[in-house]
């Protein structure tokens, strides 16, 4: 397998010397495709003798040189950290002595299974994720629809909608932490004015999750609204005219013209928000003001990102932190894989419902 991926691939220009030798070796172990490649190489080799002097030597490598920076950076900042994290996750590594890694195999992953703090963080992440993503995207849709209407000072409204996104998460969260203060916070003051009992926003298992979610919603709604707005403006106006001629109300136009037009944008925002929700870190960290990375006294708003940070940089267990990081990646992959599968099943189901039900029927019969 690795042999076929040596640098002397199909795109490699033919060159005499050691390269040719390795190609010959490749042809020996290679398959039919590989042989074909060799033939192509020979053909181009036949072409080259005519023009070796006219092409500067560098031009042959120029395309590689031009794309190299991307691959170098991707390798250094994309692949290497990923691989290093995977390696770390298979070892017992402490920040006090990162060079002394003790191989533990999958132990760090196995222990996650009965790590109550990990499951707590996973549930918190999911709950906060739903509590923040769903309202955020619905609100964004509404805001985008309003901004799409021709009105005076549209530009100003758009800037206002985007302002939270431009605010630093630290500043915003610190203000929210004050807003949700138990004794002197504005939220409780407002509840008091409305005649309701004050809420302990830090300690309440649901209240704290709601509070953290509200920061996320506040911060990201405008950003998503702008994406929706851009997509809305690409929907052909004739469609609306046609729909109006057919007697569709504004609401039906929104449902049957706007929403289908927004499908790619909605998919994109759902994807990005899901990734963001899985990695949520800054908001819960800062919302807990003094309490480090525990995410509240009872870990009631400790997300996976926060638990990872706590294990790595507070408890100094790099191996365990790395395992959590990889678990987060796996969760995302599984989530998106499941979504794709569902969509696939859905599509196939529409196309060949008969076959599908027949198979299901057969399975059911076998089971009984």
């Amino acid at each position, binding site marked *: 397998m690795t042999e076929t991926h040596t640098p002397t691939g199909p795109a490699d220009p033919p060159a005499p010397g050691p390269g040719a030798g390795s190609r010959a070796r490749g042809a020996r172990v290679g398959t039919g495709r590989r042989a074909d490649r060799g033939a192509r190489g020979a053909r181009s080799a036949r072409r080259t003798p005519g023009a070796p002097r006219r092409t500067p030597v560098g031009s042959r490598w120029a395309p590689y040189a031009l794309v190299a920076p991307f691959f170098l950076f991707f390798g250094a900042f994309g692949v290497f950290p990923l691989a*290093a994290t995977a390696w770390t996750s298979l070892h017992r590594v402490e*920040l006090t002595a*990162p060079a002394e890694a003790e191989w533990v195999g999958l132990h760090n992953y196995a222990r996650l299974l009965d790590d109550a703090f990990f499951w707590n963080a996973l549930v918190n992440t999911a709950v906060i994720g739903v509590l923040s993503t769903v309202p955020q995207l619905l609100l964004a849709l509404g805001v985008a629809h309003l901004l799409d209407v021709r009105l005076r000072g549209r530009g100003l409204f758009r800037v206002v909608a985007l302002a939270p996104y431009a605010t630093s998460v630290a500043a915003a969260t610190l203000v929210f932490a004050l807003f949700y203060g138990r004794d002197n916070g504005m939220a409780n003051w407002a509840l008091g004015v409305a005649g309701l009992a004050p809420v302990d926003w830090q300690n309440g298992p649901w209240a704290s999750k709601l509070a953290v979610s509200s920061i996320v919603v506040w911060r990201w709604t405008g950003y998503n609204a702008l994406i929706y707005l851009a997509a809305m403006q690409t929907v052909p106006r004739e469609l609306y005219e046609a729909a109006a001629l057919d007697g569709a109300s504004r609401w039906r136009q929104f449902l049957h013209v706007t929403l289908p037009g927004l499908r790619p944008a909605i998919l994109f925002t759902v994807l990005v928000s899901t990734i963001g929700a899985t990695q949520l870190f*800054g908001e819960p960290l800062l919302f807990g003001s*003094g309490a*480090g990375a525990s995410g509240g*006294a009872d*870990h009631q708003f400790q997300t996976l990102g926060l638990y990872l940070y706590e294990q790595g940089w507070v*408890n100094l267990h790099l191996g365990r932190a790395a395992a959590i990081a990889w678990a987060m990646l796996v969760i995302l992959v599984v989530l998106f894989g499941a979504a794709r599968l569902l969509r696939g099943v859905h599509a196939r189901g529409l196309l060949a419902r008969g076959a599908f039900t027949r198979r299901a029927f057969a399975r059911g019969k076998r089971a009984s």
Partner: protein
Amino acid sequence: MGSRRRNGPVVVLALALLLGATLSGGCATDPAPPPGAGVPAREPVDGSGRRITLTVGVFGTFGLQEAGLYDTYMRLHPDIAVRQTSLTRNDVYYPQLLTHLTAGSGLADVQAVEVGNIAEVLATQTGRLDALGSAPGVDPSAFLPWKWAQGTAPDGRTLALGTDIGPQAVCYRKDLFARAGLPTERGAVGRLWAGDWRKYLAAGVRYRERAPKGTAFTDSASGVMAAVTGSAALRYYDERGELIVAVNPAVREAWNLAAAFARQGLTARLQQFTPGWDQAFANGVFATVACPAWMLGYIQDKAGPAGRGRWDVAAAPRPGNWGGSFLVVPSAGRHRAEAARLAAWLTAPAQQAVLFERRGSFPSASAAYALPSVADARHPYFGDAPVGEIFAAAARGVPRAPVGPKDALVAQTLADVGMLQVDQTGRSPESAWKAAMKAIDNALDR
């Protein structure tokens, strides 16, 4: 709770940078690069020739720069320039210090270490730090014996020189005490609870009977617990370095006493070093707080001008210590001899006295206690309380409790996971204790 100076907002950028920096550093298996790799290359040159630039890495507002000690040193040594790098929070500073030490780069010539981390640094970084015990200008007998012992590694070499300590007193509001019918003169207040923390609880119960509306006796149960544990002869580790937090009766006693404060409604149910706590100082919500010497400046800052003349300082029931720091000299530094001399000078009694006079950090060098700037020190904000005398007495009485590698983590978990729930959510002390023990076991990977 060993962590001090948790003041100031978290700088998320710093965290992000740290995450990035430490990930690559933490995963690398490279051996230590050549010594001095991380020392800034640029050195100012003055007319007389080359000057050496020494950097000092600290966390929080450490005070050395603010007290003008670097300026004095540079005046005394024209060939030396001193620069400081600072991170706001120790929980950001410390992991970074560890990565820099293990990588052997990015280090300052002199680095500060908090007492909650000192045992871990000495146990795991022994080979990466220079011995300072016999550095020129260091006099072991000038320091409190327990502080000197904390800076000495298991192999007997002293690698860390003490800067300040946190001897405890109780800061109290005279006006609230008067309205509750308690004595207000600091001697009489000290006698209220002298010798026993349970008398402090009894005073709280007395206060509650006639408490001014909207006020509580003390700020938080966690604060009480930190103070009581700080006066115990054994805390989380025994002399052999075994973790005994789960079985040490002194810790359990402190826990039960602090829980009693919470259960009897004597606390304002606050969490220390959070915005709510800061506001409570300004609003005068509680009448007492167990205060190490370094907290006085914090109280003055948060309570503001309105609190002037209302606060006072009385002796704590038993002498104890909470917090304090050390200076170490990494072996990877380029100017190790000069750095050792600077560290020795900064921690010498005379300079510690200056630091106390200007910044309120109490000297760990007991030789400084006889100097007039400490012995006769009074704090104008706290009703001219003789703070030098009060804290020196407390410092001399602090038991020589061994500190363990995870002291800071254990203390923080007990306070922020365990006692905080008893105080703020009404969780039963028994169940919260179990939660804290479980969190400690998980954090310590046991």
